[in-house]
């Protein structure tokens, strides 16, 4: 009787334990934001800048990112982006020949730039990422407003933010002059991701 009882209690305990684990599972899953991989062929990490007052576009061909995002768990969402500065491509061989130089990205000394978020929050128009952008070892906070659209296993992220290239030491000496290249550079993030 006692044995039977204890067996029943054991079953009950086991059942309870399982129930706890099972019921806890969705909680565990939602507390870790979804990990997303960038579909590079359909993504662009680019910028728009001005040269002698005229606008031109560029992009970084080589970048990688640890992207975690769930709309219902922004607290656990974060972006950790690494950009190979030497992969800059503005479609002009003359211009691109200068950009790796010491006055610009100084790719020998600083081959990588980083953007690491500290917080991602919802805004009336979408979201914004508060993070630290590091170029040439100059780190400044950059708030990137963006939209995020998840469709099935894929997602589209679009964002843009204007930064001051001079604060990051990009374009020094004679290149610091805004008539050569404007100080305002619009960074454009247009990513396709899949989980």
């Amino acid at each position: 009787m006692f044995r039977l009882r204890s067996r029943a209690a054991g079953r009950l305990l086991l059942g309870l334990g399982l129930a706890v684990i099972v019921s806890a599972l969705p909680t565990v899953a939602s507390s870790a934001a979804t990990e997303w991989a960038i579909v590079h062929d359909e993504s662009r990490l680019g910028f728009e800048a001005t040269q002698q007052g005229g606008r031109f576009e560029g992009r970084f061909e080589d970048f990688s990112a640890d992207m975690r995002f769930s709309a219902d768990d922004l607290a656990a969402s974060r972006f950790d982006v690494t950009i190979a500065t030497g992969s800059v491509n503005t479609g002009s061989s003359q211009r691109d020949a200068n950009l790796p130089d010491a006055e610009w990205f100084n790719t020998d000394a600083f081959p990588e730039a980083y953007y690491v978020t500290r917080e991602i929050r919802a805004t009336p128009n979408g979201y914004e990422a508060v993070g630290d952008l590091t170029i040439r070892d100059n780190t400044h906070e950059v708030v990137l407003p963006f939209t995020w659209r998840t469709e099935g296993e894929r997602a589209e992220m679009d964002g843009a933010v204007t930064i001051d290239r001079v604060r990051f030491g990009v374009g020094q000496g004679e290149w610091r002059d805004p008539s050569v290249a404007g100080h305002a550079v619009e960074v454009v993030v247009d990513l396709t991701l899949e989980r």
Partner: protein
Amino acid sequence: MKIRNTRDGWGAGAQLLHWLIAAGIATAMLLGWIMVNLPNSATKFELYALHKSLGITILALVLLRMAWRWINVVPDMPGTLSPREQKLAGAGHMALYALMLLMPLSGYVLNSAANFPLNVFGLVQIPNLTPESETLADVASVMHLAFFWVLAAVLVAHIGAALRHHFVLHDDVLRRMLPVRRR
């Protein structure tokens, strides 16, 4: 003075275009010469931007001038010129028109092939003519410089001839391109 040309004189429209373009060409040539010889500096790039803006403006003015010439009578050359001189003057003016087009066009192609943006006087950005090409940029660069020297030579002849007409031959050729009463 009339706006339009007459058989024996240039109207105000043609004169205005002639002198605007003359001032533009002189400035663009001088700017071009100075800027390419400057070391990299903010001034150098400002001069480049100015030179390019001026070049595009001249191109537009030249097209306007050709259209104006097309819808106006072209004054006869003075009868004092021999047929050979008339032919030479005609060829010289033809060369000037060709160079006034080729000079800015080769610069525009050069800038396009380098895939540099072109914003005219900070007012309007005009599209590039060609895709990015280092080879094409090199060719256009050589042409732009070659046209510079040919234009310089033809301009020396043009100005020399105008002065000769005025001071040696004492005819109306220079005077009729000036807003003054004719003798």
